[in-house]
């Protein structure tokens, strides 16, 4: 259950709550009904960059293959009209993708009743989906790092990079993001670009960031912080390389704007902020089926509809937050495994998770609060 605007968030949640407990007992192939809400959608310029990004994000979620059906809830008078959202994004209406507004449903109670009916109609269709064997080439994963420490660039990031190389060699796709975190070392990515045009696409996004931060009177100073230096990072190149290590060693085959559908297979870049939930939301909107998240300090991030695997940079963290971490990359430091071996294990865990094995954050029920579309432009 998605929303066009903040005003319909509560109704969306009430609709999804009707399907907890035993409500899905007759539909064993349905994992659940989830309300994914956000805080914007009105008080904004209808033709602005902010609206363009919001609609692209909602459209990406509406089309996401990890969802079987989508019900979009609007209030009725918001700037982000459901009608316009569906028409500008070419979203095909049907029994598994439709919308209602609260104002046209006679208010809150009527909207909840209609919404629950619509979902009930979807359930038998959703239940027909069964698992079957498909090639790993169908997978797209989003790469994230958050709460980094001085080991991130030594253990978890290179190990994830090794897993990405394996995924790419099997024909799959990985999305590297967080433009501000690679700022100052963009040449390391453009050098790997499969064509000069792809390199130029990345540089044009970086120029956009330079203009954006200037407009906001900020700076993109990504020099190593005192904390980074204490942890052993000497130069900006070294810091950015540690972040880029997640992307492995293959060619950069395309560059996408935030939440744009990722249509090229291989290692690609998507322009996103460094703020993790915003970045991952863009990747999932782009089609990421799964998120791989390296963390040194201990992130508890989880996402719906894309399972999120957490990769600990040290054994100390892995033990301290055992119920949040999915794999221990600290074994590299302990001398128990090489980067390549960890890469193999991560790749295996990616396949198992895509096959239905629950990640730690899924077991905790994370994901309904982590939908954070990038907000751009003036709030009016």
């Amino acid at each position, binding site marked *: 259950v998605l929303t066009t605007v903040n005003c319909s968030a509560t109704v969306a949640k009430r609709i999804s709550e009707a399907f907890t407990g035993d409500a899905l007992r007759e539909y064993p192939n349905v994992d659940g009904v989830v309300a994914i809400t956000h805080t914007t959608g009105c008080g904004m310029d209808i033709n602005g960059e902010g609206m363009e990004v919001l609609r692209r994000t909602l459209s990406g979620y509406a089309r996401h293959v990890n969802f079987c059906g989508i019900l979009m809830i609007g209030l009725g008078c918001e700037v982000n009209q459901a009608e316009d959202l569906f028409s500008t994004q070419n979203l095909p209406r049907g029994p598994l993708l439709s919308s209602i507004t609260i104002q046209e449903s006679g208010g809150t109670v009527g909207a909840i009743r209609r919404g629950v009916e619509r979902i009930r109609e979807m359930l038998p269709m959703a239940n027909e989906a069964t698992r079957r064997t498909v090639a*790993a080439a169908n997978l797209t994963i989003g790469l994230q790092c958050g709460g980094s420490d001085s080991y991130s660039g030594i253990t978890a990031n290179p190990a994830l990079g090794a897993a990405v190389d394996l995924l790419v060699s099997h024909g799959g796709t990985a999305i590297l993001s967080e433009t501000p975190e690679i700022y100052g070392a963009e040449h390391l990515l453009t050098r790997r670009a499969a064509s000069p045009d792809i390199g130029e696409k990345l540089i044009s996004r970086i120029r956009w960031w330079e203009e954006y931060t200037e407009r906001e009177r900020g700076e993109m100073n990504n020099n190593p912080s005192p904390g980074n230096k204490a942890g052993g990072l000497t130069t900006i190149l070294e810091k950015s390389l540690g972040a880029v290590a997640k992307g492995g060693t*293959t060619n950069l085959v395309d560059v996408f704007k935030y939440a744009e559908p990722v249509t090229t297979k291989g290692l690609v870049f998507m322009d996103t902020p460094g703020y993790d939930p915003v970045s991952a939301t863009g990747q999932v909107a782009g089609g990421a089926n799964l998120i791989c998240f390296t963390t040194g300090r201990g992130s508890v991030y989880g996402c719906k509809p894309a399972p999120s695997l957490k990769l600990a940079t040290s054994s100390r963290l892995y033990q301290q937050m055992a119920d949040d971490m999915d794999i221990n990359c600290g074994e590299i430091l*302990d001398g128990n495994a090489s980067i390549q071996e960890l890469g193999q294990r991560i790749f295996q865990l990616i396949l198992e998770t895509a096959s239905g094995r629950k990640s730690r954050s899924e077991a905790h029920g994370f994901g309904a609060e982590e939908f954070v579309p990038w907000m751009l432009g003036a709030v009016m």
Partner: protein
Amino acid sequence: MLTEHVLVIQLNRSDDVVIACQDVPAGTVLDEYGLTVRDAVPAGHKIALRSITSGQPVRRYDQIIGFASEPIAAGQHVHVHNLRVQFSNVITPSVRTPSQPGTFNRVQPSAESSVLMGG
């Protein structure tokens, strides 16, 4: 089984430095690299694998991370006191967007095929 924790890690075979995985005291002998560590090096920091003359590039992840600002001896701690990057010298417009397509590591399709149970 108790395993002995590794002291240092080399991220790429072409690197000029290894990374300390724990605090490494001065005088520690790294047999694997035929190297005696000259300074006390904190965890996460870099140790020179070979002597590097002033102005020469220093590589980590097989990438240049900076240039020696003074001569560096094998076994020395490499950090802000002897490693710099003059950004304008490295990141020229032509470096930012090379005119030649990248040939970094073209991956060949894997012979084995991995599968998953998709929904």
